[in-house]
C-alpha cells in the first residue's frame, strides 16, 4: 500500500513538473509572443498615454502669451505646497492697474502628480504632459518657473 502511494506520488510529481516545463518550453521557442519594452533603445518611437501625468507645464502660444490670471486657485488646491505664484500689477496704456503673474514657481521635487491643480484652474492655464525623464544632477534644477520670460496674459482672459 505504502509502495503504491509512493510510486503514484512520484508519477504525479514528475507529470506536474513536466506540464509546467512544457509551458516554459513553449515560450522559449515562441519568443515573438514575449512583449518587452526595449527602453532606452526605443526612445525615438516611445509613445506614452496622452493623459500620463508626468509634469505640470504652462502652454504658451506663438505670441508668447499664456492664460494664467494669477488667481492662485492651483496654489490653494495643491496638497503639498508645490506651486507658488508671485503676482505683480501691470499698468495698461490707459493707466489702469491689472493683476498679472510675475513668476509661477513649480517645485517638481515636491509634486505628487495628483492633478488637483489642473482641475482647479478656471482658465486652463496649466496642463499635465507625459514627460517622465526627470533625473538631474542638482536638486535645485527641479524648481521651475513655468511662465516664459517676457510672456504676458492673453487678451480677454479675466
Amino acid at each position, binding site marked *: 500500500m505504502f509502495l503504491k502511494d509512493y510510486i503514484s506520488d512520484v508519477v504525479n510529481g514528475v507529470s506536474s513538473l513536466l506540464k509546467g516545463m512544457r509551458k516554459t518550453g513553449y515560450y522559449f521557442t515562441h519568443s515573438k509572443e514575449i512583449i518587452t519594452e526595449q527602453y532606452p533603445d526605443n526612445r525615438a518611437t516611445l509613445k506614452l498615454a496622452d493623459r*500620463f501625468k508626468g509634469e505640470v507645464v504652462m502652454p504658451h502660444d506663438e505670441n508668447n502669451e499664456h492664460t494664467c490670471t494669477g488667481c492662485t486657485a492651483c496654489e490653494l*488646491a495643491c*496638497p503639498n505646497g508645490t506651486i507658488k505664484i508671485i503676482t505683480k500689477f501691470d499698468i495698461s496704456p490707459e493707466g489702469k492697474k491689472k493683476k498679472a503673474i510675475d513668476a509661477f514657481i513649480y517645485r517638481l521635487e515636491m509634486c505628487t502628480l*495628483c492633478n*488637483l491643480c489642473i482641475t482647479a484652474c478656471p482658465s486652463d492655464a496649466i496642463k*499635465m504632459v507625459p514627460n517622465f525623464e526627470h533625473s538631474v544632477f542638482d536638486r535645485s534644477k527641479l524648481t521651475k518657473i513655468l511662465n516664459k520670460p517676457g510672456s504676458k496674459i492673453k487678451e480677454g482672459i479675466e
Partner: protein
Amino acid sequence: MYNETEIIKDTTNLGPEGELVVNMGPQHPATHGVLHLVVTLNGETIKKIEPHLGYIHRSIEKMCESLTYRQFIYVTSRMDYLSSHINNTACALLVEKGMQIEVPERAKVVRTILNELTRIASHELWIGAMAMDLGAFTPFFYAFREREMITDIMEDTCGARLTMNYIVPGGLMYDIHPDFQTKVKAFIQQFKEKVTEYEDLVTGNIIFQSRTKGVGVLTTEDAISYGCTGPVARASGVRCDMRKIAPYDAYDRVEFEEIIETAGDSFARYIVRVKEMNQSIRIIEQLIDNIPEGEFVGKTKNVLKLAKGEFYQRVETARGELGVYIVSEGATTPYRIKFRSPGFSNLSVLNHIAKGSKIGDLMATMGTLDLVIPDIDR
C-alpha cells in the same frame, strides 16, 4: 552603544534551551518591503515571531488632518498601493455620505470596473511574488504580462500606473478614455486564455502543493478573533466580503459569488485569490457593455465641508476590509481620521499560525497573508 557590542562566536549557549534569535528584515527579499520580523528559533522550529513596525511610518492619519476633503484622497493611494483605487473609493464614498452628494450612475459603474481591475492587478502581482518566494521565478513574468495590460488601461484613463488619484468626491476626475471599453474587453479575452497557464505552472505543481498544503492553518474561530478579513478569512470559512454585506457603488446590481474555502491553510488562501480573479472578470463582463451615458461627476460645492459628527465607511480592498473613520467638527479639514487597514489585522495572526512550524514554511505562510507593508504601517 556600539562599543558594548561583542561578537558572539559560540551560539550554543544562547537563551534557554539553545534558542536562537534571527532578524528577518527590514531588508529581506521575502518580506516585500520593510517588515522586520524577530524570529525566535529552536533549531529549525519557530518558537515566536515578533513583527517590528515603524520603518515606513509616514503618519498619514495625522497628515490627513491638515488636508481638505478633496486633498486627503491622494494620500490614501500611498497606503495600500496595490489597491489604490479602492482606497480612494473608500474616502470618496465617505465624503459623499457625509455631504449627501449624488453620484451619477456612470461614475458608479466606472468606479466598480476600475476597482475590480485593481483587484485583479493586485492578485496577479501577489501570485507572481508568492511563487517567487517559494522558489519559482517563471510565474512572476507570466503574472506581470497580464498585469501590464491593466496598468496600460489605468495609464490611458487615469494618467498613472500605480497611484491613480482618479476618484474624487462626487464621481470621477475626468471622463474615461474613448478606448477604455475595447481595451478592457481585450484584457478579459487574454486573461481567460492565459489563466490556465497559472494552473499548469503553479496550482498543479507538486512542489508548490507540498509546500503550501497544511502549512499555516488558520481556524475559523481564530480568523474571527484576530479580526482577519479578505481572502485570509474567506479561506478559513468566514463570510466577510464587504461587497456582499454592505454593497457600495454598483455592487448591488451585479452577480458574483463570494469564494469560501474551509481548509484554512496556505493553499486554500491561494485558491481563494485565483477564484476571486475569475469572479472579478465576471463582474467586469456584466458592467463593461452597460456603462450609462451622462455626467461623470456630480454637482459639488466648491469648498467641501462635512457636517459635525462621525462618519464611517468600509470597502473590500484586495486584502480585506478597509474602514475609514472621520470625526468632523464642521470645518474644511477632518478633526480626526482613522484607517482600519486589513494588513495590520492579518499580520497579527502570523505568530499564531506560524508557531511550531519550520522556518522554511514561514515564507509560504507570510506570502499567503499578502502583506503590503505601507498599509500595515501608515
